[in-house]
C-alpha cells in the first residue's frame, strides 16, 4: 500500500512537475556565473591535492616512525617517500596559481566554456593528485618496512614509487592543456 503511494508520488514528480519546470531549471543552471565554476575549480585543485598529499604522508609516516625504532638507519633515506607525497601537494599549488591568474585575466563576462574548463581542470588535477598521494603513501609505507628488514630492497621499491608519482604529473599536464 505504502509503496504504491510513493511510486505514484514520484511518477507525478518526474513526469508531471519536472518537465513543466525543466526550461526554467536549465536557465537557472545557465545563469550561474562562470566565475563561480572557475573559482570552485581552483579550490578543488588545491584542496583535494593537499588531501591526497596529507593522506599519503600519514600512511608513510606512521610506518616509518615505528620501523625506525628497531632500525634507525632507515630514517634519512625513507624521507624520500615523504618528499614524493609532498610533491603532489606542490603540483596542486602550482595549478591553483596558474588557474587563479587565468581568472583574474578575464575581463567582463567570460564565456561559459572558460568557466567550465577551469572547473574541470580543478577536478582533474585534484583527483589525480589525491590518488597519486594515496598510492605513493601505501608504497612508501611498504618501502620503509622492507628497508628495515633488508637494505637492498629500498631502491627497488623506490622505483615503484616513482611510477606512482608519475600519476600526479599526468594530472598536471592535462590540467595545463585544459
Amino acid at each position, binding site marked *: 500500500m505504502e509503496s504504491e503511494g510513493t511510486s505514484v508520488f514520484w511518477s507525478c514528480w518526474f513526469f508531471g512537475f519536472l518537465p513543466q519546470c525543466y526550461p526554467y531549471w536549465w536557465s537557472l543552471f545557465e545563469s550561474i556565473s562562470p566565475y563561480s565554476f572557475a573559482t570552485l575549480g581552483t579550490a578543488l585543485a588545491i584542496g583535494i591535492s593537499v588531501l591526497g598529499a596529507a593522506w599519503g604522508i600519514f600512511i608513510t609516516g*606512521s610506518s616509518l616512525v615505528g620501523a625506525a625504532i628497531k632500525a634507525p638507519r632507515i630514517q634519512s633515506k625513507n624521507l624520500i617517500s615523504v618528499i614524493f607525497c609532498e610533491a603532489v601537494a606542490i603540483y596542486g599549488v602550482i595549478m591553483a596559481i596558474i588557474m587563479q591568474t587565468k581568472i583574474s585575466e578575464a575581463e567582463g563576462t567570460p564565456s561559459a566554456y572558460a568557466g567550465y574548463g577551469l572547473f574541470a581542470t580543478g577536478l582533474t588535477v585534484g583527483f589525480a593528485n589525491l590518488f597519486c598521494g594515496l598510492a605513493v603513501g601505501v608504497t612508501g609505507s611498504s618501502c620503509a618496512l622492507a628497508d628495515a628488514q633488508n637494505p637492498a630492497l629500498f631502491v627497488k621499491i623506490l622505483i615503484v614509487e616513482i611510477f606512482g608519482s608519475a600519476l600526479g604529473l599526468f594530472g598536471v599536464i592535462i590540467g595545463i592543456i585544459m
Partner: protein
Amino acid sequence: MGRPGSMIGFNVDDGFLEAILRGYRSGILSSVDYVNLTQCETLEDLRMHLSSTDYGNFLQNEPSPLATATIAEYATKKLVDEFRAIHVQAVEPLRTFLNYVTYPYMIDNLVLLITGTLQNRDVSELIDKCHPLGMFNSMASLSIASTVEELYREILVDTPLAPYFADCVSMDDLTDVNIEIIRNVLYKAYLEDFYQYCVKELGGTTAEIMGEILQFEADRRAINITLNSFGTSLSKEERAKLFPTIGELEPEGLMRLAKADDAQTVALAIDGYGTFRRLFQIAADTPDKSLEDAFFQHEVSLCKLAFEQQFHYGVFYAYLRLKEQEVRNIVWIAECISQKQKRRINNYIPIF
C-alpha cells in the same frame, strides 16, 4: 582489516604498531644463529651467543650455574614484554583482537590453578607458575570453588572467559578428568568465537590469513584429542563433543575421528585431507620427528606466510606463535647441551 581500500585506512590506528612488530620480527633468531647455538658446549657459551643476538643481556644478572628453566623463564619474559608493549598501545579493533589472543593463556592458567587447588597446593605458589599473558582478576580466589557451578557463578562470570562456560556448567564435580574436559570445552568455544570474529567482523586479509591458521589449529586439536583419548575413560560421544568444528576436517573427518579406535584408524580418517596426510607421512618417515613436531613445523610455515602481506592483524598473532616456537627451540637446545645428549640437538624447527 576488511573492505576494499583498507590499505589506505589501516595506518591511522595500527600502522605504528605493525611497524614496531615488524621490527621485533627482525629480531627472531635465524638459522645461522641456531647453528651457532648448537655448537655451544656449555650453557655459559649459550648465554654468550645469545647476548650477541636480539636477546642481548637478558640473562645478565643470573649467577653462574645456569639452569634451563631460568633460560626458559627469561626468554618467555622477553616475549611477554614485547607483546605487552604492543597490547597496551592498541586501540579498537586491534585491542579486541589482541585480547582474543590472550584467552588461551587464561584458560591454561585457570586449569593449572584448579588442578593445583585440588591437590591442595598453596595458591601463591601456583600463581607464580601461571603464564603472565593470561592473568585475570580474582585469580587468587580460585581456591574457594568446589563445584563447577560455584566456580562459574563466583569467579569466572567477571572474566572474559564467561561466555565459553555455557557448555560446562552442567558438569558436577571438579575431578581430574573433568578438568581436562573443561579445558577442551573452553578451548573449543574460544576457537570458534575467535574464528567468527576474524571472519565476520574483521574480514579482508585478516580473515584470510587468520582463518587458515585457526582452521589448522582446530584440526590439530581434534587429532590430538583423539590420539590422547585412547586408553582413557573418555567415551566416543564425549570425545566428539570436544572437537572444534571450524576446521577443514568438518564434517566427515571429524565423524571418522570420533569413531577411531587406534592410531591406524586415525591415519585412515585424515587420509583424504592433503595437508594432514603429508604431515602424518613426514612423522612416519623420519624417526626423530614426532607428529607434534610435524604440526609445529606446519604452523611455523603458516605464520611465516602472514608476514608476506601488509595491513592486516594476522602478523600480531603470527609473531607470538613464532616467538613461542623460538623459546621452545632455545629450551630444547639448552636441555640437549646441559644433559650432554647432542645426538638429537638438531631437532629444533628453524624459523627464518
